[in-house]
């Protein structure tokens, strides 16, 4: 394991600072939560709050407008479209945060400070990821509350035949989404450590996301409508092979339980699905630790 000991860098640090005792500063950087703290401050400096406000505004406007187009189930469509917006926006936030906290760190050579202390490098990785998790969970909880309130308000106008379930069904939907976001974060972190440009994090993560979310549903549609491509059976078979490479993120979308107030829409093998996705995310984290330890900074 490569570790950098405090050397000339510490001297340079101490000369830049004014009042704070140098030793204390260095000790704080060795404390368990210092990485989280620094990462949170970095994210806030990168206008995370402005981003949150825009996201909330987009969520409110799209949800409300979508409800206007539905004749018989405005609250269901509102919840449906709102969840779609959350599911599209949060991976984007993940990419932006990972770019800010990993790629920029390497670009701006902040690692000369953050990785220069006598401690394993994975402490840095886990600290940053913990900060991303804190921000994302806060964002997810806030968006979930906002959407629930909005849907409740829209639902006041018109008594639907099948009301939406904003109770445990909704919480389970958000929980499954959180697990999906964990897997996406792990992939994005590995890409950020391995890749040499921040753009690759965006392209790679979204490519992974789109394929992992859609392949299972496409396989299912091809089974129902084999006229779509020539030799649909073989095409379907090779597409189904993707199931061994990527987690089935589309199946983690259990919003139908909340939309139609029924647990029957939960996939039959959901414990295995959850365990598999968690294992996939953890495996990518392990790879990220390994890649960071072997990374040669230029």
């Amino acid at each position, binding site marked *: 394991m490569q570790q950098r000991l405090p050397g000339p860098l510490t001297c340079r640090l101490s000369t830049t600072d004014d009042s704070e005792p140098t030793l204390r500063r260095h000790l704080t950087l060795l404390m368990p939560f210092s990485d989280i703290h620094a990462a949170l401050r970095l994210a806030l400096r990168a206008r995370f709050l402005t981003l949150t406000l825009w996201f909330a505004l987009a969520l409110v406007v799209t949800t409300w407008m*979508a409800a206007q*187009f*539905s*004749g*018989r*189930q405005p609250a*269901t*469509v509102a919840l*449906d*479209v709102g*969840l*779609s917006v959350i*599911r*599209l926006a949060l991976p984007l936030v993940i990419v932006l945060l990972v770019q800010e906290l990993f790629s920029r760190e390497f670009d701006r050579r902040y690692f000369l400070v953050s990785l220069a202390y006598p401690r394993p490098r994975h402490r840095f990785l886990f600290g940053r990821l913990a900060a991303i998790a804190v921000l994302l969970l806060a964002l997810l909880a806030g968006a979930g509350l906002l959407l629930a309130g909005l849907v409740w308000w829209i639902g006041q106008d018109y008594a639907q*035949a*099948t009301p939406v379930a904003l109770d445990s069904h909704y919480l389970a939907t958000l929980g499954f989404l959180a697990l999906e976001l964990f897997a996406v974060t792990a992939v994005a972190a590995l890409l950020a450590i391995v890749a040499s440009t921040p753009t690759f994090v965006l392209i790679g993560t*979204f490519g992974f*996301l*789109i*394929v*992992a*979310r*859609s392949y299972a*549903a*496409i396989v299912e*549609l*091809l089974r*129902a*409508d084999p*006229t*779509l491509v020539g030799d649909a059976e073989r095409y379907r078979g090779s597409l189904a092979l993707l199931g061994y490479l990527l987690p089935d*993120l*589309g199946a983690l*979308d259990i*919003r*139908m339980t909340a*939309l*139609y107030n*029924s647990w*029957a829409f939960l996939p039959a093998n959901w414990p295995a699905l959850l365990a598999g996705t968690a294992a996939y995310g953890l495996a990518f984290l392990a790879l990220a630790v390994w890649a960071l330890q072997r990374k040669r900074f230029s």
Partner: protein
Amino acid sequence: MRKYPAPLLALLLFATFLVSVTITTEARHQRPAPPAGGRVVISAPLQLLMYAGDRFLGANLETTRVASSGVASGEADAVYLIRAHRVVAQLNPCHEDNYYLGNALLSWGGAESEGSDLLRRATACRHWDELPPFFYGVNQYFFRRDVEEARHALEIAASRSRDNAAALRKFSIMIAVGEIQDVGMALTYLRNETEQASDPQLKTMLEKRVRRLEGLVALREAQRLYESRFSRPLTDPYALLNSGILDAFPSDPLGIGYEFLDGGFRLRELKIMGLERQK
């Protein structure tokens, strides 16, 4: 001028671009609009990729498009409606607006098989909802006179219903003994739909279907009058004109028309080329 050459040049080029856009759009406006048959409905797997694997978003956007973009009557538009509704049913068969609107527009617009297909998918997906099997049963009885299938669907509806179970079973028995004012019932349903429709375009579309059904009522009324006056069954629809009961056959605002089959009038179904029917 010497100081800002690049921004000024950019401004000039943007102005050129705008002028060229104006010229091309004007040229496009002068050409006649393409027929509505060219309307594209992207297939379900491609929509999945387009919306990043989010089939619910695809279903919602497609339903919004159907509900807000009006269609005139005609075969080309019927094909568009059929395809759009079917894609939504593939993406999210539980979508309530889709099966409800699709049943009103397709089943009563001459494409009964496709409308019933939407209802069949909705019946399977919405395992608690009594409306799709009820509509499906009504379609089977009204359009196909398939009493067996209709009663089966109504039984499903009755088993799902808490308040209407008795009424649905009574309806099922009335179908079996053949004493039902089916056209009157269908007219009531369509008129209710028309009154509830908030979108003016949807209202116009539904009004045409109401008038089509009123034409059928007129035809059947004329047949009843003929048979009671001459006390023999009607075999040739033109006998209605010859005997002076009808001045002219009612015209169908959808342009699909009616047909006389097995001694009774019914709504003609669209014959659509190049569209496989799912039986």
